[in-house]
């Protein structure tokens, strides 16, 4: 038995049909609001609050917006202010239990990265309040042409961070109890038979998209490719739209803007997602732009994923969800960039040997 199967087989598990699973969602809804993937048009998916458990999509490649939208909203009022009397109040963030259902392992891994980003140094109350009581039910998935999470060390069946985990088996699922919180939820649900003792045997999943080095070697590659020509190659194609930043599940940069109501008295200090690929991101007062070229911005984006934060957090800050590649309007793929950098690195190493 391989290490992954060994780990999965240690959890108590139940066999559950899809029909019962939807009843389980109904049961969860009685405990707390449940958020899960839904169809959003014909070929797109998004996390939404579950109204009807029949509408929850259990098999999907990826949602367009990452789960981070529930912890770092795309638009968030930081302060309500009154211009006339110079007063302000901070909107209350309700610290409530929320259940996130049918979440993929790379998405869970991205939250671990966001946890790091919002709690190292200063601990941000806004993020922590939203994150504190969150419960996660994971589900495995079949990688499509853009997923490459295995290349960054995240298995499809990685259970870390989840309270419960679903593995498809036959015409139903195994429901695995990962944490005590998960166990309590299962115990309260009357629809399950006794724990199942069949042995889990995962089939190694084939990722079409791959990085050609083991992820442990990537920081070393990034030590040598700062001046690579690869950055220019992709800058020539890139249109600088920032989609890769805005859909990235670990990007967390933001802008803060004051917005005034029509009464010219009330307004809000509001935070919006921002992205280092956008032209004005590194501009300072006086107009100087410290990352004026697309090549430098592309480099900055990748260094943030594979080196800068990684050196401190000891985690790659790319989780292989493939959103940046999948939704890039000009078809730039993260794995292509990294593989080109590896080629460049190898050529450099060979030259040094000679």
């Amino acid at each position, binding site marked *: 038995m391989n290490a992954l199967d060994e780990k999965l087989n240690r959890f108590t598990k139940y066999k559950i049909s899809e029909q019962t699973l939807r009843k389980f969602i109904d049961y969860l809804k009685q405990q707390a609001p449940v958020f899960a993937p839904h169809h959003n048009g014909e070929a797109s998916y998004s996390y939404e609050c579950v109204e009807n458990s029949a509408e929850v999509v259990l098999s999907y490649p990826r949602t367009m917006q990452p789960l981070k939208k529930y912890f770092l909203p795309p638009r968030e009022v*930081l*302060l309500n*202010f*009154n*211009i006339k009397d*110079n*007063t*302000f109040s*901070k909107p209350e963030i309700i610290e409530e239990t929320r259940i996130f259902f049918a979440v993929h392992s790379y998405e869970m891994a991205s939250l671990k990265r966001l*946890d790091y*980003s*919002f*709690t*190292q*140094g*200063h*601990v*941000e*109350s*806004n993020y*922590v*309040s939203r*994150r*504190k009581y969150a419960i996660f039910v994971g589900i495995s998935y079949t990688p499509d042409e853009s997923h490459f999470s295995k290349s960054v060390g995240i298995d499809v069946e990685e259970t870390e961070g989840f309270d419960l985990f679903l593995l498809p088996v036959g015409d139903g699922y195994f429901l695995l109890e990962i944490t005590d919180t998960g166990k309590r939820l299962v115990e309260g649900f009357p629809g399950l038979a006794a724990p199942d003792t069949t042995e889990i045997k995962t089939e190694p999943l084939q990722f079409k998209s791959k990085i050609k080095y083991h992820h442990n070697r990537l920081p070393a590659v990034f030590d040598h490719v*700062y001046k690579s020509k690869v950055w220019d190659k992709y800058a020539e194609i890139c249109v600088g739209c920032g989609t890769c930043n805005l859909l990235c599940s670990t990007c*967390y*940069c*933001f*802008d*803060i*803007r*004051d917005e*005034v109501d029509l009464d010219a008295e009330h*307004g809000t*200090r509001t*935070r919006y997602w*921002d992205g*280092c690929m956008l032209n004005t*991101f*590194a*501009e*300072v*007062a*006086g107009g*100087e732009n*410290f*990352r004026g070229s697309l090549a*430098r911005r592309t480099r*900055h984006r990748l*260094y943030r994923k594979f*080196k*800068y934060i990684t*050196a401190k957090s000891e985690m790659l800050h790319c989780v292989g969800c493939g959103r940046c590649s999948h939704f890039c309007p000009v078809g730039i793929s993260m794995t292509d960039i990294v593989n080109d950098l590896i080629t460049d690195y190898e050529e450099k190493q060979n030259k040094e040997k000679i």
Partner: protein
Amino acid sequence: MENLAQHAEDLYCPEIATITRVETLTASEKRFEITMPGNRPLNHKPGQFVEVSIFGFGEAPISICSSPTRGPSFDLTVRATGRLTDKMHLLEAGSQIGIRGPFGNGFDPQDFKGRDMLFICGGIGLAPLKSLIDYTLDRRNDFGRIIILYGTKNPAEILFPEEIEKWQQQTDIEFVMTVDQADEQWQGHVGVITTLIPPLELDVKNTIATVVGPPVMYKFVLMSLKGKRIPDENIYLSLERRMKCGVGKCGHCQINDTYVCQDGPVYHYPHVKQLEEAV
């Protein structure tokens, strides 16, 4: 997460302070004296900055230009160059203003005890360095020579005329000023700030050089200092970036792997030398 929740902070709430004095310095720069609620001291270090805000006009990072040895209020020198700073220029003494901070690392003047201090200030770069200059003047016996080089584009842009007059008269300060372009009244030195460096006679091993100015200035000043054989480890720079949040989150001020609002704005030169995006 629940452990961390105990340390969670409301990072974006300003304190409402009061502007207690406004002084026009040049056509585009004013000095504001700020008093915190209850007249409490800001407890800043020289070289640190605050996030200044006016509701409806946003926030901006502004260097503190007064020394913590003088207080409890503190000074900000503000150039009108954007939404927030333009609005701030319209405010009078008695107006309220939002303050978050102090942020950034600042200088540790105790580390410079007994050393000769060489201040190289370009344009509005004099403002952040003035917090350290005043500190060394208030603890004059702790330091060796105090040499201030100050360059501006033209005489109309000279900041702090009162202080400068004092510095010129004081015998224990060596103050040299230059302008890039003279006007009819100007009798002093003409030329960019780097022209002031070669004539200096310095005990290079014992001299601490601090440099603040517009982005274009650093490269040339650093070359001149190298020409003077001032060791890299004796050089400190303060770098300007768009520190939006001040607390190491928003990403705008990042230079390679360093956040200016956390690890800077004051950098030891051997550190930034490795960073392509720094100077």
